[in-house]
Each structure stands twice: as structure tokens, then as C-alpha cells.
């Protein structure tokens, strides 16, 4: 349990940022997909710039993790799911106004009905797992 406190703190910080940046707002997502606001593009763009710079620095200087392990990032393999699943997720993202992280954030900020969306998302993952072998990949 003690080992996990650092992840609890990191998750709490992420939750605070998701609310304060309003990226978990259904309204902000609608503005983004109607090209009415730069906010979401600014958030995601600057997050990627900072993330990429950090990963580059970690690799460049061989920075180790706290436990002294060399840092390993699993590569992403291409499969058709990134296209089909990606499109389906995009459709759901604009409807719920939330990707998975914000679903948790919306619940925490008092929208308890979103717990039903989360449950439905878990069912969606289960259905994918059940019929994965029949889907194109």
C-alpha cells in the first residue's frame, strides 16, 4: 500500500488539473470540435510538447527511475483498431464530453450520473474483450 501512495498523489494532482483546466467539461469539448475555441488545442498541444521534451531528456541523459531502473517505454504497435476503435471513441468523446480520465473527474466534481457512463464504458471494454478475436485488427 505504501508503494502506491506516490500514484495516489499523482492521480490526485491529475484530477485537480482536469477540473481546473476544464478539459473535463462537455462544453469545452463541443467548442473544440466546432473550432470555436483554442483552449483544448492549447492544452493538448502544450502537454505533448512538454511530454516529448521530458521523454527526450530522459533518453538523452539516461535518467533512471526512483528505484534506479533504466526507463523503458513500451512502443505502440500499429493495428487497424487504432483507426476503427479511434473513430468509435471519437464519436463517444463528443457525446459524453469525456475521455476516460475525465469520466472519473466528472464523477469527482459531483456529476454522479456519470458513474453510469463509466459503468457502460467498462461494459464496452468487456464486450471488446469478449469478441476481440472476431474484430479486424
Amino acid at each position, binding site marked *: 500500500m505504501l508503494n502506491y501512495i506516490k500514484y495516489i498523489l499523482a492521480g490526485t494532482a491529475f484530477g*485537480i*488539473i482536469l477540473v*481546473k483546466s476544464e478539459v473535463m467539461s462537455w462544453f469545452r469539448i463541443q467548442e473544440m470540435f466546432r473550432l470555436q475555441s483554442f483552449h483544448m488545442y492549447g492544452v493538448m498541444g502544450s502537454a505533448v510538447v512538454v511530454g516529448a521534451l521530458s521523454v527526450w531528456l530522459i533518453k538523452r541523459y539516461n535518467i533512471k527511475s526512483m528505484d534506479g531502473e533504466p526507463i523503458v517505454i513500451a512502443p505502440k504497435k500499429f493495428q487497424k483498431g487504432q483507426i476503427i476503435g479511434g473513430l468509435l471513441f471519437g464519436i463517444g468523446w463528443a*457525446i459524453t464530453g469525456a475521455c476516460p480520465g475525465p469520466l472519473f473527474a466528472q464523477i469527482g466534481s459531483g456529476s454522479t450520473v456519470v458513474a453510469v457512463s463509466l459503468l457502460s464504458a467498462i461494459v464496452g471494454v468487456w464486450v471488446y474483450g469478449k469478441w476481440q478475436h472476431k474484430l479486424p485488427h
Partner: protein
Amino acid sequence: MNWILAPWPWYVSGPLIGLIVPLLLLLGNKSFAVSATLRHICAACVPANISFFNYDWRKEAWNLFFVFSIVLGAFLGHFCLSENAPVVVDPRLANELATYHITDYSELIPVQIFSWSNLISVQGFLFVVVGGFLVGFGTRYAGGCTSGHSIMGLSNLQWPSLVATCCFMIGGFISANLLVPFLLAL
């Protein structure tokens, strides 16, 4: 303290989200991911002998702690670190939503759509249940979400993540401009 209580601009919140990437790598060699938790929940609760859920989810317990803590952080962010003023949206969006009688901006999500009382309507069911299903099914099929692909994957210059991110956006553009107006009119 006003700057803490007001919504944070993109150039503050974006870089902070980006810093979660090195934070998790340095804390424990973990890659930033959120949607994988939904798979771990299935593996822990209803594996049903499905090979996709047949793995030691306990090894990924950090991910469950990280993601469930988002609920706590959001609670603090909303109830302790916000003045909870109405959300300010672009007038074009407000005008469009007004035609569907969406006028309540007291919360970050439209409470007139996302509420327990609206859940039993066809509209509420489509927004809450069908929308949620697509988020879960789609992210797992794509092998990641906005965190795993769009932030972690792009930060690590993975081209499959760029493909996934473009598809997220295309799906979102189609949905927000064609499907959501139809759902709002129900």
C-alpha cells in the same frame, strides 16, 4: 489566490498535464495511461475465462490507484479550489445550445442532459449509456485513449499513436457536428 480559484489557462494546465509523463516514468517506470484501468477492472471483476482478461491485473494495481485518485483530485479541484462561477462558453455555442433549451451553465457539464432524471429518457440513455459504451469499447479497440496515445504515445513519437489521435479527432468532429445536434433535438 484568485488565479488558483479561476479556471487555469491552457498554457498553465497543458504543461502541467505534460509533466505527468516524466513524473510517472521517474516515480516507477510507468507509462501514462488511463483507459487500461477499465481493462484491469474487467480482469479483476468479471474475467469470465476470456483470454483478453486473463493476466495478472494485480501487477497493474498502480494504474488503479492512479486513476481512482482522479475522483479525489476532481472533488478537491471542484469543491475546494474553485469559485464555481458559471462556465463561460463561446457565444456561438451558447446560441446553438439555446435552440435546444440548454441554458444551465452552473456546472462544467450540462446538467439538463446529464442528470439522473434525464437518464430514463431516450436522450439521456443515448448521451450517458451509449456514449459511455463507445468511449470504453473504442479506447480499448484503439489500444489507448487521449492519455495513452495522444499524450504518452505522441510524447514518445509513436506514429500509431498519431494515427489513433487523428481518428479520435475525425470521430469527434463528425459526432459533435452531425450526431450531437440530432441527439440534442430529441
